[in-house]
């Protein structure tokens, strides 16, 4: 996936899930301030990103993501890790 494709998918996830106008979602938008998301939204975002990356994200790294741009980079890195076959973080998701 190219960076543009990733961005497109992320805008889609954010606007579909959180009643956001796609035009307001810019790379520099901050998730928790400008887009007004909260920690539960974050859980839902990262669960949905698994469909793109095919990997369970590392929650510690996910916590560091503050902007849409950082989210795109995060997905890029996850895709690269999937490509390399890196092991997933040892985290049990509570079901």
């Amino acid at each position: 996936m190219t960076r543009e494709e990733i961005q497109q998918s992320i805008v889609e996830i954010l606007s579909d899930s959180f009643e956001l106008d796609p035009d307001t979602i810019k790379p520099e938008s901050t998730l928790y301030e400008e887009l007004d998301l909260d920690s539960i939204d974050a859980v839902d975002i990262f669960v949905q990103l698994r469909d793109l990356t095919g990997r369970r994200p590392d929650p510690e790294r996910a916590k560091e993501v503050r902007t849409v741009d950082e989210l795109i980079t995060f997905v890029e890195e996850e895709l690269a890790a999937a490509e390399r076959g890196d092991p997933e973080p040892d985290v049990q998701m509570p079901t």
Partner: protein
Amino acid sequence: MLAGGPFDVVVCGGGLSGLTFALRLLRESPDARVAIIDRVARPLPEACHKVGESSVEVASHFFAELIGLSEYLDESHLHKNGLRFFTGDSQRPLHERPEVGPPEFPIVPSFQLDRGRLENDLRARVEAAGATLLEGRVVRSISLGEEGHRVELDDRTLEARWVVDASGRRRLLSKQLDLRLPSPAKASAAWFRLEGRIKARDLVPESERQWHQRDIADNRWLSTNHFVGRGYWVWLIPLATGYSSIGIVADHEHHDPSTFNKPERAREWLAKHEPLLAAHIEERGFEDFRVMRDYSYLTKQMISPDRWACIGEASSFVDPLYSLGGDFLAMSCCYTARAIADDLAGRHDPEIIRELDAIYLLLVNDSSRTLSRNGKIFPHGKLLGAKLWWDFFNYWSFMCAHFFQRVWLEDAATLRRFRELGQQFYDLNTTAQRLLEGWAALKDERCSDGQKRFVALPLTRSILSDAHVALAERRDIDATFAKMEADLILGRELVAEVFAHALRDLGREKAATLGAMLGAAIGGEEPEPRGAGMALSLGERFTVVDALPRKERLGRYSQVARDLERALGREDGDAPLGELLQSALLGAGAAPAPAPRPGAPVAASTSAS
């Protein structure tokens, strides 16, 4: 031991219920003299064609924790990845159909069982535990007496203090005592096995990466997969012996059973209703084929102070949809073993037995209500998601907690206290099922997707995942009761939120019709059934809060409201929710919703008193 007895217990039937019951009793009462009669002598074929492979939480807990099969099941059978449903328009590619199922392997385990292998192994275990197995013999008659019972076989007569009927659908005692009650569900099933693994993923092209990656560890195939449509569902279950089990279950209201009761007809039926699956198995032969017409039946009584009991399918069989057959088997086995162990220890207590019988019947009837008249719900993504959310919450919060926390080992007064609470869950479930049915009946289209391509069941970090995780925690009896009471309040909120989703989906005009269908259940000061008044739960939540922008709305939502919105999505109705509610209330002939009290909490605790 003298094979003519006398025995403490004669068990008529050496299938899954009879064998697991004996194991349970011999754990509680190791010196009990137990005889088990079965028509068929070993060895049973490994991959025998007994249906009932899929177990859910109660049955799995029984097998693994209460009769010591945990290691054995881990080694010899498959761990199951929950229940998974593919809904919406069945003529479309599978990856375009909405999916409802677990996003990760469940923490509380369940299993896919190979019945032939299991029953062979259990016979050996039961003998090692000290039971007398009389194989290749037929029960001719049972005579129940006040001073002991007599079971006549083809070659001898056994005397017994207790008789336990585990004869499955032959229902020896149930017929003799006229215990059968009709079920509201009228449905038939046909099933067959195929060699090799058939996986849902085989039906979706590799190019659909996101669909494949949604199932993060490629474990969809370990779920009991259901392909559902109007009036039917089709199961796909993997077995440890390498076979796949496929079954068609259809409601007589929508499908004539004669359209799928022969192998070639079943293929034609599948080609029409589930064409993708039909095409995938077109070249493969059926190993076997069975049909069960009008399979569901209930019972007047499971166990008696007169020292008899009917366990497993010798008592009742509700419906295979949620794989609850094993659960009722587990409960009837455990309750009966407890009553007999008490008796053998000199503590025969008719009051306890009556309570055990009453809670068993309450749960059977509750499940029967949950599992009948669903045909129109199945093909609607949002509606099915809502139903599964409620049904699972209800199941985990009461029935599972009652079993996992060993409430059935308590004294009569405690049993009664829990049963009365169970009655409130039952009443709430009655309202919930009427709501779901009414919603489905008012849909114009035959199938629909809803907002979500994938409804997580349970959703990570939600009231539903909490209810599931809570099963693994051991609580004392007071904490168990308090948790159930709190869950009942959450349950009322959940039903009210399902109502909100239904109202938005149906719009103003149909809201009035839905109101008329539900009547007093949605409003009024003294809601009927007890405690289920949805309008009261909704007051301010429906009128003020719902119209707020997302962030403010979330800030005033209860967790239930938010979780259901996360799971099912949110759509705009043709009017604000408050107006839709008014329309429903007018339809119900009820007084308008109470005006919101300033500063009142939004959480729906008002109906809990």
